[in-house]
């Protein structure tokens, strides 16, 4: 087993230097729930671990009228316990509550979930639904990337050598905004998504019309998919089961899954549609604020 170095910089600049030092085999560490498991299993070659959790920017939760800036290394546990996030972005908790169990959530971050870039990562479709912008720092300065462009292949993303994710920026939720993330797993807890779906909507003031929408599905392609055509098809349409079914069809068409031990191609295609429709229903519910899912189901003749 090769020896490694461990460094814990306290500023973004120090982290940039630490990642640049050595033979180019330094890796950032957030909660370690992917990285340390991979290291232990010998699936990861690295010579330096750069722990980002002592950098204030990486651990900050900052909410104001412009939105939320969430440090890349903030744990799901801290997100779950942030009343400010629960109030402003309740749908984000759909993901942070189901990544692993309690003890994984104690460490796992959304930055780590995104940078690990698994096609089945449970936060990414939700981040796409929330129109998140990724803030990246590296040897050639800072840049931003829309989250739907971040992942490029299983385990791969747009980060160049020496770059790391500093924060995730969520725009302030517009009036009548709602979102949701759902995943299908064969167990109750602690499993990898067979399919996941994130959705968000902005409704008219009376809650009857969809002004805009975003749909994203996971575990059905090499990267989490942003299904822009599904959101476009919903824009300007009345809230009805027919409109939602149309978006679900588009998500099903967009899915290009593989068959593996977790699910087959037809099952995953089917689930892409079903979960998209259900996530949209919950997002609409939440946008309306007062209605429960059941009430909306009844409103739409599905109770």
């Amino acid at each position, binding site marked *: 087993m090769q*020896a490694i170095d461990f460094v814990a910089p306290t500023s973004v600049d120090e982290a940039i230097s630490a990642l640049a030092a050595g033979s180019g085999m330094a890796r950032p560490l957030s909660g*370690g729930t992917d990285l340390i498991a991979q290291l*232990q299993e010998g699936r990861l070659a690295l010579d330096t671990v750069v722990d980002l959790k002592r950098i204030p920017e990486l651990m900050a939760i900052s909410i104001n009228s412009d939105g939320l800036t969430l440090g890349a290394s903030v744990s799901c546990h801290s997100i779950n316990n942030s009343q400010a996030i629960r109030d402003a972005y309740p749908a984000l908790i759909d993901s942070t509550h189901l990544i692993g169990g*309690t*003890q994984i959530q*104690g460490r796992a971050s959304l930055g780590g979930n995104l940078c690990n870039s698994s096609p089945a990562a449970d936060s990414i479709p939700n981040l796409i639904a929330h129109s998140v912008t990724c803030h990246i720092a590296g040897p050639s300065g800072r840049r931003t990337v829309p989250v739907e462009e971040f992942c490029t292949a299983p385990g791969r993303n747009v980060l160049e050598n020496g770059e790391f994710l500093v924060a995730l920026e969520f725009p302030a939720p517009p009036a009548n905004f709602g979102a949701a993330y759902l995943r299908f797993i064969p167990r109750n807890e602690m499993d990898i998504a067979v399919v996941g779906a994130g959705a968000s909507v902005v409704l008219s003031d009376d809650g009857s019309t969809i002004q805009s929408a975003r749909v994203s599905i996971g575990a059905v392609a090499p990267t989490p998919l942003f299904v822009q055509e599904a959101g476009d098809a919903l824009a300007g349409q009345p809230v009805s089961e027919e409109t939602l079914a149309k978006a679900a069809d588009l998500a099903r068409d967009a899915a290009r899954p593989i068959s593996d031990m977790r699910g087959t191609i037809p099952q995953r295609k089917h689930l892409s549609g079903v979960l998209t429709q259900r996530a949209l229903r919950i997002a609409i519910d939440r946008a309306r604020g007062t209605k429960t899912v059941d009430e909306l189901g009844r409103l739409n003749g599905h109770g």
Partner: protein
Amino acid sequence: MDMAKKIAVTTTLNGEESIFLCEPRQTLLEALRDNLGLIGSKEGCGNGNCGACNVLLDGVLVNSCLVLAPEVEGRDVVTIEGIAEDGELHPLQQKFLEHASLQCGICTPGFIVSAKALLDDNPAPSEHDVRLWLAGNLCRCTGYDKIVRAVLDVAEGDS
């Protein structure tokens, strides 16, 4: 194999300041068991799936097999060895005995640390709350019912 340089880590361990030497790639679980002789935390899987290695890190429940030992510099670690106070078993430990909530016992330290974190967070959990919270702790022997009953017994005893 390279000669790994060792790092000195200062931490609060079960309420007392402690300094230990570790290699940078050692996990907290390895440092606890191999370097510090605290063998109460168990390695069930070594990859985050079983919870047998659970400890509290700054009061937050984590898998010590997925923490690198140098990460705990300046932080507060509580292991199963720190759960009993002044030689008195913690109520959870007592109730695990009374309800016969263990057989081989490998999972037990993790369950007790995990359940303690639950009761610190929510002193009056429902059965559903207990089962959901403990979903990351696996037991091959008991079938879970006796564990859940012991935790609920302590929770009710509290209120």
